[in-house]
């Protein structure tokens, strides 16, 4: 008797609503439960304002990165996941090379997913903190606009921080 209403409910429950996210870089499509995708504030705003069609195009994010983002959202949409589980899962998602991490942080920023932005930023910070500034320049694609004299002057002011660095 006790299980009868449960069965009834399941039978009459509407089909779970899904959204399709499409990477505009390589046209890969991902079908995602709506409540998973809505962790992205950007997507939520589109859905709330009825701007979202059947397929939501996601510009500038590759399928590879979108898959990571969706994995993160799925983990965090699971109500039975413990804080420890989530920490481990997050660590797995960000165990990537620095260039993938930068793509991931940009995706988290574009899709406005605060938790992913924070965990990826922390991982990037941990990965670059012991690198020489020349390597950081390259990773972030920054042009050096110091003259050698200016560079030497900034360095001289905090020479202790450069001990052991080129």
């Amino acid at each position, binding site marked *: 008797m006790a299980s009868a209403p449960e069965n009834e409910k399941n039978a009459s429950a509407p089909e779970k609503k899904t959204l399709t996210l499409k990477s505009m870089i390589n046209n890969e499509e991902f079908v995602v439960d709506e409540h998973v995708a809505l962790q992205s504030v950007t997507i939520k705003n589109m859905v709330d304002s009825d701007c979202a069609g059947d397929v939501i195009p996601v510009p500038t994010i590759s399928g590879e990165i979108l898959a990571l983002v969706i994995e993160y959202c799925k983990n965090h949409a699971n109500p039975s996941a413990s804080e420890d589980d989530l920490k481990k899962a997050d660590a797995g998602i960000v165990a990537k090379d620095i260039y993938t991490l*930068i793509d991931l*942080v*940009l995706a988290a*920023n574009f899709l406005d997913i605060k938790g992913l*932005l*924070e965990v990826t*930023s*922390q991982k*990037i*910070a*941990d990965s*670059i*903190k*012991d690198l*020489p*500034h020349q390597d*950081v*320049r390259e990773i*972030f*694609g*920054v*042009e*050096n*606009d*110091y003259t050698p004299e200016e*560079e030497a002057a*900034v*360095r001289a002011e*905090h020479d*202790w*921080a*450069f001990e052991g*660095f080129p």
Partner: protein
Amino acid sequence: MSDYIPNGVLIEILARLPVNSLIRFTLVCKSWFSLITSPSFITKHLNHSKTNRDKVFLRLYNADEREEQYILCRDDETLGYDDSKLKFPFELVSPYNWIIGSCNGLICICDDFYNHSHHIVIWNPSIRQSVVLPRIYKPQSLYRFVLGFGAHPTTHEYMAVMVVYKNALLNQEREPAKVEIYEQGTGSWRCVRSASFPCFMLEFLLQQAFVNGAVHWVVYDPVTGLRNVVVSFDMGAETFPEMMLPPDVRDQMRVLITSFDESLAVFMWWRKGHRFFLRLGDERVWCCRILD
């Protein structure tokens, strides 16, 4: 700025770096230098460090080498540290310095134990820079002072406050003390005239606590000897609010005042354990905790 990384994202990443990495990364390019040294980024970095603190700053006296040592330790049961002994930038007169207070990663230190020197130093150990405050009273003079250290509640500039007593008046009569404040912006002292310091005495060398934009001291009445009030100096309003101590610690000699999780706390040695009172900012009440 980097072509493909929005400023907001870059700030999220850089705010999570230790200070020594940030110093090196000012050399990435000029816009990184401007970003890293900007007041808004410094505030963001500071707030991030405050919520993710894993180190404590300790002062030790090494009896063999007869010197004080400053170290950064892990904030856990081990209190472990690597080679993080910090070089104190000054040769002060006394072998024992007096830590007046700390605020936003800065430490205010004075070597004036017996009215002999009056060096006041504000030290930022993370970037190894420091400032010696200008002297306004000669050592061995007729004046003695008590110091407080904090920051302006809205501009966040650091400030020191000096309550000045004439030596001859100590423990004798009620006379308002003079109050001078030092501001980061001007780099000089000025006399506070908007309000006068209540007619209480401050204990020399005793602690102060900087909480909610105000420096707090436990004071006593020089005539009756009563000790039941906390006087504070509000660094924004430049006023001297008073509050009563909780009944259990009134008139006790060894009342120490400090900050605890952004609340004001006073504690005293009890026969069994330490009795510890917290004044919670908004609730305006003292509550008691007993520590083992």
